């Protein structure tokens, strides 16, 4: 290793990210989840009877699933934030209920 390479190794050291960064990431992912929940809340019983809006409902479910998965990623680093995991379970439960409701209305 040359002298310049040694100097570069001393100057360009890896930088540790702050704990605040993972918290911010978690918040952003939570926002995605919230957006999906709001999307689902828009659907009233009339909307559920309108086949043109079923695709939108399914899309909202996909977003919710994706955001939920992303939350799992962050929680791998911050397992202590279990209260948000409960929120995710509630969201999943809500999704299951909506799905069941759709199926019932479709007579499946």
């Amino acid at each position, binding site marked *: 290793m*040359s*002298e*310049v*390479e040694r*100097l*570069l*190794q*001393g*100057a*360009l*050291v*890896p*930088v*540790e*990210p*702050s704990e*605040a*960064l*993972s918290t*911010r*990431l978690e918040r*952003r*992912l939570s926002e995605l989840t919230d957006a999906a929940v709001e999307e689902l809340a828009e659907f009233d019983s009339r909307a559920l009877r309108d086949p043109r809006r079923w695709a939108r409902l399914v899309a909202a479910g996909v977003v919710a*699933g*994706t955001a939920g*998965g*992303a939350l*799992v*990623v*962050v929680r*791998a*680093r911050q397992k202590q934030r279990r209260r948000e995991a409960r929120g995710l379970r509630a969201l999943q439960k809500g999704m299951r209920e909506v799905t069941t409701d759709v199926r019932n209305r479709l007579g499946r």
Partner: protein
Amino acid sequence: MADKTSQKSKAQLDAEFSDLYRAHLRDVYSYAYYRVGDHHDAEDLTEQTFLQAYRHFERAQAESQGRPLRPWLIRIVHNLAANYHRDRSRRPQTNLEDAAIISAPHGTEELVEEREELTAVLSGVAGLPDDRREALIMRFAIGMDNREIARALGRSEGATKVLIHRAIRQLEERLAEREGVRNERG
């Protein structure tokens, strides 16, 4: 390979993304920091990088054919950093020099000279052409090898080796010039 990836469950994909995130959060953050020279903006870029990576993770896995995904992640933050500078119409020279605070020891008079030396190195790196500076950050701040850097920059391995060699040589010349000027003054 694509079929195998498509058969993965969402839980598997999430677990693998989680591993990627944990393994390379520091790499992404370090690269972002040395590109923008500011912790706040580096955090923003890191955040955007992982959100973007999560959206495209499944496809990236399928296309990587089993190769490590670190170059893909660094390419994302690399592109975001380029957008950052384009949006703000500013170059990172001054910011990169400020980054000496991270690496330079301080507090004692004996270390002042070493601090100046590190500042000179960072200043020299900041003054290099963009591609040379970026390659040096990947090599020394993140520890990427030629193959990884080549993938991140979208170049051949041979071209990357030449790029790094020229970057080091140019920096060496600049530091020598600087030392010459200092000696003349002293």
